[in-house]
């Protein structure tokens, strides 16, 4: 069967070189020639080539999945190297799909790699998914997770799901014929701003390595048809406690997407569904008085009597600080007596969001001479003092 890419039909067996490459698979009765051929003929699409996509790409390529699709619109960022182990320092700035392709084809030149350096949208999802057998969700935002789910249910494709937050991970398989879908578990997304992203919450670098490897394992088991897969089970991993817990996932008979009387028959506007417009979930816009970093610097140089309030966490203060008085935002209500409302106060945090909340809170508490440092210490580093490290 010729593929869309015009490549010739795949040969029936394995070459001598392939037999040698996969010998450790072949000598296991659970895989054998039959299993390895199934892997060779499998077409797997990875949505996201980041933290989860890294072990996924590496292990699926190593295992000999014959056709790997890699979808990611992003470029490699320096901060990615803490966990996205397909990339190296020399890849910073390159499109992720290209850097991943280079790494994976070096690992296994025999497989076909198809890249989609594009955003996944309601307009292209069905077209992209339809030529693959299995979709693996390694994305990082709620709108895309619902999009991947819905497209998989509409096309009848299994969705190998994994997600992470700081040091906790989840894994399961959605979209199997009698199994639940993502909406059975989470009918509605959280409102934007309520669940932080990795950039805001942080993530232990190894965590996506573990969860992504579990996803790779489940994908392989699905392809070779062995073992008991995670359909109908939510695997919850707590890295700090180092334990795995399992929860039953049931197919919701009233699920609007996959239930008997489903009401959703096509892809929707997922950003609207999740209450988000644009790429990121913006925090509610707080209108508070602001001061720009350069203005603050000028006033401090002039000798103005300003009280700098830092509302970050102690471990952030240790990274860098403006020698402000530290009251973490969560403690502000309790410690407001430490502040003198007769003095002029400038509040700051890392990027200006938390300090905007602090200024809003203090103004409502009666403070009149208070401003938010726009852009936080990040902007201070950019615009005033580049020796201050960014993080």
């Amino acid at each position, binding site marked *: 069967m010729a593929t869309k890419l015009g490549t010739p039909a795949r040969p029936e067996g394995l070459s001598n070189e392939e037999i040698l490459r996969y010998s450790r698979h072949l000598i296991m009765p659970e895989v054998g020639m039959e299993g390895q051929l199934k892997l060779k003929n499998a077409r797997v699409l990875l949505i996201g080539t980041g*933290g989860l996509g890294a072990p996924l790409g590496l292990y699926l390529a190593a295992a000999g999945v014959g056709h790997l699709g890699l979808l990611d619109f992003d470029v490699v960022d320096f901060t990615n190297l803490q966990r996205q182990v397909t990339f190296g320092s020399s890849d910073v700035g390159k499109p992720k799909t290209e850097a991943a392709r280079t790494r994976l084809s070096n690992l296994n030149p025999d497989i076909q790699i198809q890249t989609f350096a594009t955003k996944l949208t309601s307009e292209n999802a069905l077209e992209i998914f339809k030529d693959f057998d299995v979709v693996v969700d390694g*994305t*990082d935002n709620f709108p895309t*997770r619902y999009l991947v789910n819905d497209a998989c249910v509409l096309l009848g494709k299994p969705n190998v799901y994994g*997600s*992470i937050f700081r040091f*906790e991970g989840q894994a399961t398989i959605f979209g199997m014929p009698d199994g639940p879908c993502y909406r059975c578990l*989470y*009918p509605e997304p959280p409102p934007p701003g309520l669940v*932080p992203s990795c950039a805001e919450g942080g993530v232990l670098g190894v965590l996506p390595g573990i969860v992504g490897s579990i996803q790779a394992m489940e994908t392989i088991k699905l392809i070779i048809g062995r073992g008991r897969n995670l359909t109908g089970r939510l695997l919850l991993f707590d890295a700090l406690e180092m334990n795995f817990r399992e929860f039953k996932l049931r197919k919701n008979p009233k699920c609007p997407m996959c239930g008997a009387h489903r009401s959703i028959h096509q892809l929707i506007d997922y950003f609207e569904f999740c209450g988000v417009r644009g790429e990121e979930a913006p925090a509610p816009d707080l209108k508070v008085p602001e001061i720009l970093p350069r203005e603050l610097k000028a006033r401090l140089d002039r000798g103005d009597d300003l009280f700098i309030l830092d509302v970050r966490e102690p471990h952030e203060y240790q990274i860098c600080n403006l020698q402000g008085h530290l009251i973490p935002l969560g403690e502000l209500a309790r410690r407001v007596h430490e502040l003198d409302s007769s003095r002029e106060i400038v509040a700051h945090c890392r990027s200006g969001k938390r300090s905007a909340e602090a200024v809003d809170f203090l103004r409502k508490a009666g403070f009149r001479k208070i401003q938010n440092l726009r852009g936080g210490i990040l902007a201070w580093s950019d615009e005033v003092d580049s020796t201050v490290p960014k993080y």
Partner: protein
Amino acid sequence: MAVKVVIPTPLRAHAGGKTAAEFSATTVQEALNKLTAEFAELRRHLYTNEGKLRSFVNVYVNGEDIRYLSQENTPTQDGDTINIIPSIAGGTQ
């Protein structure tokens, strides 16, 4: 022995960093009420303004989703474990 409520990672900051709390409770409702009474900040993460359990938060008793038991009226007894599982999305960034 009481009912153990396991607090998930994304919500631990709102529960003074605790990973779990124990209460004596005869229903899930009672246990969660005691939880949000002790940690007021958890209230808005778990419940809407109208007092309904948020639908992106799933509650399990001994591994079973309460939506398929008796919702918040699901009975609990000493030794039971309640898990709260909110949706998380991190993966690439």
